[in-house]
C-alpha cells in the first residue's frame, strides 16, 4: 500500500511538467498582447512597455520563459501577475471561496443523491422510483445557466429569501443556492448511480444470506447492501470533488462568487499567463490527488482490491 502511494505520487511529476508546459504554450498562442491589454484602448508608453517586457522575460524564447517559471514554482513563488499582484495572494483569496462552494455542493450531492437513490433502488419500478427518475432527467437536461438564473431570479429577487449575489467574504449561507445550482447536475448522477447499484445488489446472494441470518431489514440494507453499493458512487463523488474544486465559471459568474472559476476567467481575458498557468497547475494537482484518494478509498471499501 505504502509503495503504491509513493509510486502514484511520483507519477505526478511528469504529469505536472507536461500539463504546465502545455498550458504555458497554449496561453502564449492566444491572440492579444498582455502589455497592450494593461493599458486598455490607448497604446502603451513605449518605454514602460519595453521595461515591462524585460521584467517579465517576454523577449526571451518560450522555453527559457518556461524555465524561469518552473524555477519560481518549485520555490513556491508563482510569480506576479502583469497587474502587479502576487499570484500566491490571488490564490489565497480565490481558493478558500471555491473550496467552501465545492463543499456545499458536495454535501448537497451526498445528502440528497444518496438517500433518494437508495430508496428509489429499493422500490424499483414503483411510483417513487419513476418520479425521481423523471425529475433527475429534467435536472440533467436543464443547462446550468438557465437553472442558475431562474433560481436567482425567483428565490433571490422575487421571493427575496436570500441575497441574489454573494457578498464580501462569501459567507456560508449565501453559498447555499450557488452550491445547489453547482451540485444539481451531480445530484442527479449520484441518485441514478446509487439507484442502479442498489437495485442490482438487492437481489445479490449475500443480501439474501443476510436476511436468512435473521437480521433486521434495516441492518440488511445499511450494513450489507449499502456498503457494497457505495463503491461506484464513491468513485464518482471523488472524481466530482476534483471537478468542483476547479470552480464553476458559469455558476460563479451568475452569483458573482469571487472564486477560482471567476479568477481564471478574468485572467484568460487579460492574457495573464502567470495567473492562468499557476491556477491550472494547482487544479491539475488537486485532480490527481482526488483521483488517488478515490483509488485508495476503493481499496478500503472493497477488500478484494489490493494495491501492490
Amino acid at each position, binding site marked *: 500500500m505504502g509503495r503504491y502511494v509513493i509510486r502514484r505520487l511520483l507519477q505526478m511529476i511528469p504529469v505536472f511538467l507536461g500539463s504546465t508546459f502545455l498550458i504555458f504554450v497554449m496561453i502564449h498562442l492566444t491572440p492579444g498582447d498582455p502589455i497592450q491589454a494593461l493599458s486598455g484602448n490607448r497604446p502603451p508608453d513605449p518605454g514602460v512597455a519595453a521595461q515591462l517586457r524585460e521584467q517579465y522575460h517576454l523577449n526571451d524564447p518560450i522555453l527559457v520563459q518556461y524555465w524561469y517559471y518552473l524555477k519560481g514554482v518549485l520555490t513556491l513563488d508563482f510569480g506576479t501577475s502583469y497587474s502587479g499582484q502576487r499570484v500566491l495572494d490571488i490564490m489565497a483569496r480565490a481558493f478558500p471561496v471555491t473550496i467552501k462552494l465545492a463543499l456545499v455542493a458536495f454535501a448537497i450531492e451526498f445528502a440528497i443523491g444518496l438517500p433518494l437513490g437508495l430508496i428509489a433502488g429499493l422500490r424499483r419500478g414503483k411510483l417513487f422510483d419513476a418520479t425521481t427518475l423523471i425529475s433527475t432527467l429534467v435536472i440533467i437536461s436543464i443547462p446550468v445557466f438557465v437553472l442558475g438564473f431562474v433560481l436567482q431570479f425567483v428565490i433571490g429577487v422575487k421571493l427575496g429569501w436570500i441575497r441574489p449575489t454573494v457578498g464580501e467574504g462569501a459567507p456560508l449561507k449565501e453559498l447555499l443556492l450557488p452550491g445547489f445550482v453547482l451540485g444539481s447536475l451531480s445530484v442527479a448522477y449520484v441518485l441514478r448511480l446509487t439507484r442502479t447499484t442498489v437495485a442490482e445488489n438487492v437481489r445479490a446472494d449475500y443480501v439474501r*444470506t443476510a436476511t*436468512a441470518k435473521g437480521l433486521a431489514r434495516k441492518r440488511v440494507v445499511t450494513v450489507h447492501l449499502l456498503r457494497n453499493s457505495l463503491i461506484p458512487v464513491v468513485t464518482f463523488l471523488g472524481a466530482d470533488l476534483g471537478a468542483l474544486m476547479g470552480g464553476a465559471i458559469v455558476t460563479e459568474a451568475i452569483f458573482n462568487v469571487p472564486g477560482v472559476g471567476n479568477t481564471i476567467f478574468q485572467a484568460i481575458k487579460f492574457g495573464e499567463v502567470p495567473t492562468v498557468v499557476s491556477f491550472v497547475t494547482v487544479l491539475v494537482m488537486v485532480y490527481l490527488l482526488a483521483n488517488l484518494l478515490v483509488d485508495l478509498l476503493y481499496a478500503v471499501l472493497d*477488500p478484494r482490491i489490493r494495491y501492490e
Partner: protein
Amino acid sequence: MTPGSPHAPLLEVDDLQVEFRTRDGVAKAVNGVSYTLEQGQTLAVLGESGSGKSVTAQAIMGIIDSPPGFVTGGRVLFRGQDLLTMSVGERQAVRGEKISMVFQDALSALNPVYSVGFQIAEMFRTHRGMSRGESKKRAIELMDRVKIPAAKDRFGDFPHQFSGGMRQRIMIAIAIALDPEVLIADEPTTALDVTVQAQIMQLLRELLQEMSMGLILITHDLGVVADVADKIAVMYAGKIVEQAPVHQIYANPAHPYTEGLLHSIPRVDRKGQQLSAIKGLPPILTRIPAGCAFNPRCPYAQDVCRSEEPPLFQIGGDRRSACHFWEDVLARTGTAFATGTGSETRPSEAAAAPAKPRKTPTTAKPAKVNRAER
C-alpha cells in the same frame, strides 16, 4: 394439528404453493408440496434444476424474491405454528435462530466486503446482543468446530481468501451458530470438488450427530444422499412425485422418474454397462403439460397419463408415489434393482399396501421389452 401442539412435527410443509409472475406468464414453481421433518431426522429433497426444491426451502425461510415470487397457498408449520401467517418481526426471530440455511455458492452468498469473522460474529451480536470481544471468541470457537485450520488467525480474513471448501465451512458455521432446530442445506456441495464434497458431507454428518437438529438436504446428486438421509422426497415440476424412506427408494423406486434418476448414476455393480439419461428436458414451468407433468419424458406413458394428473398415492406405510402405474413400476424395479443394494422391501409388500383411489389398468407394460435390452 392444532397450533403449538406438543405432538406437532418439527417442521411441516403442507400443500405449499409458490408462483412466479413473469412476463411469460405465471410459473407454478411449487405446486402443492407437503413434507414433514422430525427432530434429528434428515430429509433429502431431490430433483433437477427448476423442480422447485430450492424455492420450497426459500419459502420456508421467507426469502423468496417478491416480486416476482409469491407464496399463494399452503402452510409451513414450525412446531405447529404457521410461519406464513406470522408478523415480520416474529418471522425474523425464527430465521437464523430456529431455522437456518446453508447456500449453494458460498462465494456469492458471503458478503465480499466483510471479514468472515465479522459475518459469523454478527449472529451473536445481533441475536444475542453479545459484546465485540465475546462474539469474536464464540466465532473462533465455531470456526474451530467446523474445522477451519488456524481459526484464530483467519478470523479477519475475507471470503475471497478462502478455498471453496473452507468458505462452505464458514457458511455452515454461520448457519449453526445459534443451535437452530432445522438446518436447510441447499445444494451445499454442488459447487465443490468431489473430494471436498465428501469432507463437507462428513462435517454435516458429524454436526448432525452432535446436535439434535433436523436437516433438509436439497440436492440433485443421488450419491450425496444415500448415507445421510433418512427419507427422500423426489420433486419434479413443482410437485413431489415420490416420497419414501431412503433405502426403499434406492432398492425399489415407485415412480418412473426416480427410476430414471437411479439409472443415470454410475454403480459399481453395473460396471461396463452404458449409463442411461432421462430423455428430454424438464418442462418450462409456465407451460406444464396436461396430465402427469412427466408424461412427455416417460417411456411408459399411457393415454391416462396425458389426460389425468395422478394424485400422490399412499402406497405403503410412509411411501407415496404420483404415478398412475406405481404398482407396475414397483414390480419392474423390484427385480431390476434387487441385485444392487440389499432390498429391504419386497415389491409385493409395498404393492399390497392399501389406499389407492384409482383402479390400475393391468395392460400397461409397453416398454418392458425396451427396458430388458439394456
